């Protein structure tokens, strides 16, 4: 059953890993499949985002506009999620994502995600745990980096 496949794909995403399977099933059921041709744009840098995409098949390039032109910063493949920040808060897309091959995605809309969270606060708490863990991780790395930076500066002076 392909709905089950979607649920599996969702569970493979760390953000959703701890969410109850029944809720993920509802999220999968209310999300839609979207296919892209090579070269088609999933989202554009600077535009407001309203959905995240989970790649079920194919690969996509992540491109960032810089002062030196457009730079490819990553390639995404199966079970990767893209644009998850957009469904958590209102920020413009930070990168442009373009299908590199024929791409098969599951589109999680912001509305669908929020419906899930407001209806089942437990889902929100689990996602909060995951985000807090990430924040902790990021903070720790930042601390490391700051320490390293301090050392480097100390060495220069």
């Amino acid at each position, binding site marked *: *059953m392909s709905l089950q496949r979607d649920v599996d794909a969702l569970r493979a995403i760390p953000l959703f890993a701890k969410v109850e399977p*029944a809720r993920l099933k*509802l999220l999968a*059921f*209310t999300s*839609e*499949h*979207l*296919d892209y041709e090579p070269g088609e744009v999933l989202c554009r840098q600077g535009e407001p985002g309203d959905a995240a995409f989970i790649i079920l098949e194919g690969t996509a390039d992540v491109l960032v506009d810089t002062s030196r032109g457009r730079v490819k910063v990553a390639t995404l493949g199966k079970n990767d999620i893209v644009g998850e920040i957009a469904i958590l808060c209102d920020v413009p897309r930070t990168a442009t994502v373009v299908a590199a091959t024929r791409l098969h995605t599951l589109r999680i809309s912001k509305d669908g995600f929020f*419906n899930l969270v407001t209806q089942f606060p437990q889902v929100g708490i689990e996602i909060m745990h995951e985000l807090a863990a990430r924040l902790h991780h990021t903070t720790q790395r930042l601390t490391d980096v700051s320490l390293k930076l301090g050392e480097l500066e100390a060495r220069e002076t």
Partner: protein
Amino acid sequence: MEQSIYAFIRKYSWRQQLLILGLTALSFPPLYFSLELPKTIINRALGDPDGPWVLFGQDLERTTYLFALCGLFLLLVLIGGGLKYVLNVYAGIVAERMLRRLRYQLYEHVLRFPLPHFRKVSQGELVQMINAETEALGGFVGDALAVPAFQGGTLLTILTFMFMQDPVLGFAAIALYPLQIWLIPRLQRQVNELAKQRVRQVRRNAERISETCATIREIHAHDTARYELARFSEQLGAVFWIRFAIYKKKFLIKFLNNFIAQLGPFFFFSIGGWLVIHGDITLGALVAVVGAHKDLSAPWKELLTYYQTMYDVRIKYEQTVSQFAPPGLKPAELLTGEPQRVPSFTATHLRLTGVTLLDDGGEPVLDRIELDLELPCRVALIGPAGGGREELTLLLAGLLVPHAGRVLIDDMAFHELPESVLGRKIAYIGSQPALIAGTVEDNLLYGLKHRPLRLIEPTAADRVRHARDRHEALASGNSPDPVDADWVDWEAAGVREPAERLPAMIRALDVARLTADVYAFGLRGQLPANRPELAGRILEARRAMRARLAGDERLARLVEPFDPDRYNGNATLAENLLFGMPVGRVFDLEHLASHPYVRSVLEETGLVAELQRVGYRLAQTMVELFADLPADHEYYRQFAFIAPENLPKFKAILGKTTVDRLDRLSAAERDHLLDLPFKLVVARHRLGLIDEALQARVLEARKRFREGLPAGLVGAVAFFDPNHVNPAASVQENILFGKVAYGQARAATRVAALLGEVVDAHGLRDAVIEVGLGAECGIGGARLTLAQRQKLAIAREVLRRPELVILHEPMLALDAADQPLVREALLETFRDRSVIWSLQDQDWAGRFERVLVIERGRVVADGSFAQLGGPQREPAAVAG
């Protein structure tokens, strides 16, 4: 209108009334003799054993004599009844004609009301007065002379008969009439007074209901439903107490009347019996008198009622008529008349001299305006809202009449010009345009329908009907104009040949930038049945579409075509089974399985049990997914196959058995399961419930459904056929001939673009727009957005090419990007004619030759844009 109901009756129906009187007079002789005959039968045929029995000079045998008399009696009864029938029908016709005339006159008065009066009257009250309250008046008109003549005559005939039998009995019969004549009207007057109160109260109810409809958003937004319910309850209560009082009085009157009527037999049997015993009158005479007295009470009651109604109706008529004659009523000849001289609107002057307009409180809204516009002109009116700008545009359009001063065109005063001049030469586009309930085309052509121009090829039957309708309309003083004629004055729109009509309409839509909207309506609309040549072109477009899709793999993914031999994964199970569009209500896609024929097809193909199992699994998934959601969650509407209130029912079904033992369920429960899967779309729902084996069997059922369709159901479904246009499907569905695929990025946009290319390549765009013109606008244009309504109002005026167009903030609801485009297109369209435009955005004033600043009811500045200081903002002069 006539001041009293009697004047109204006299003026419009005296001939008919005379005829009614004549018929009435004719009906008395049979009545008299039908009273006389029973006496002869009893006294001569039965009571006199010796004869002779002579009838019309013939000496008859006794039995023959009896039957001859009885036959005669029957004949007289028939003649009397027949005459009464004719009389009643005729009186009914007269009443209905007068009612029709009265309603027509009242409606015509509404059309003549001065515009400000509509602020004072409530729509609900007008409806109530024209529809309901006139009913009693009309009924009375038919009876006005007939009832007193007929019932009075009947009464007199019967009384004459009684007095002929015995004067004492005659007196006995009417002994109590003086009492009734004195007492009953007094009581009745109180009832009438209450009835009048009730009418006023019911009018207030009507007003409240129409106010509720108008303010429904406010009621919900302010949570005042309870307050409104209380108010309405209070009003209904008032009606109740009035009715209660009426009942008490009304039935008292009835009691008194009945009692007095029953006193008659008391006198007859006592006095009459005494007379019979003493041999002063015969038994036959007494029986006849008792019988006659029974007949007497009916006309007497009718007469009393008539007297009461007359009193009531007289006042009701005066009350109603006074409501429809407000001061400033437009003379009737200005409404539909033609002018003696048509003033020019080009190369002349439009002047305002001392024009003053007062508001309801008597304060000036426009104060002694002096203005001289040389036509053609291009004038902008600017100034603060409420400063008199809108009122000035209404005055210039002849929609408001000034309280002092005059508006002159070509030295002719506006208020003396008929609407056939003002309404054709001048167009007014306000900020709240109203549309009629009808199609886009009806609305677009509304401004061209001034008078009937051509009868649409009447058939012989039509001609008879037209003649009959016309005769009847004239008999009621109504308009004899046939509505189903062609009223559209294409000449005025500059259209000479039928072939130019559509292009002219499209040009008008283009100016208002409404064409794309109407094209979209057209794609969703159905092909008109009267355009067979279009079908061929649509089929060509369908083939071209097919070729385009087949030629490009990327495009092919966007649409899944209808194929009689394949299951369409992007269509519902119901659509796949039917493989066509239901026509009418015989087949309901939502509940397909409940139709007996569908059911029989499913049983023949062995699909019932299979689909019940699919339904069971679907119910399982639904219960699992939706069990924890509150009943009002929007997901039910968007995604669920089961309404929240039915979820417990399916939970119970699931609890009873497993998918393999559905036989444990009742037939009704199995039917519930069978109903579920028909909305399943394989590509969308991804539940894997309809596998390929099942799809193959659905295809088999599809075939069987079509082949075995009983003759009676043939018209109920329009099958998809690659080589024929489907009349029940939309234009878009016919060209696409398939379903837009789920799960393809931007599929809808890309398909729409592709469709547009195909439509253009086959020269079908105009045809699609033509279909779109047939789209319904809804009541007051409710199905259109406000922007579409405003655009349609603009296109309507563009099409009819007036000499002078007056606009007051006509496109506030339009997209900011559209506004300047429409403005320029309008100015270009009217470049040789006159435009007076009341602007909200004063930056636009630069596009006009002359700018007037209106403030506090005066023209405070007048000149070119540059003279008035150009585009910089001066708060005092240019706020708005």
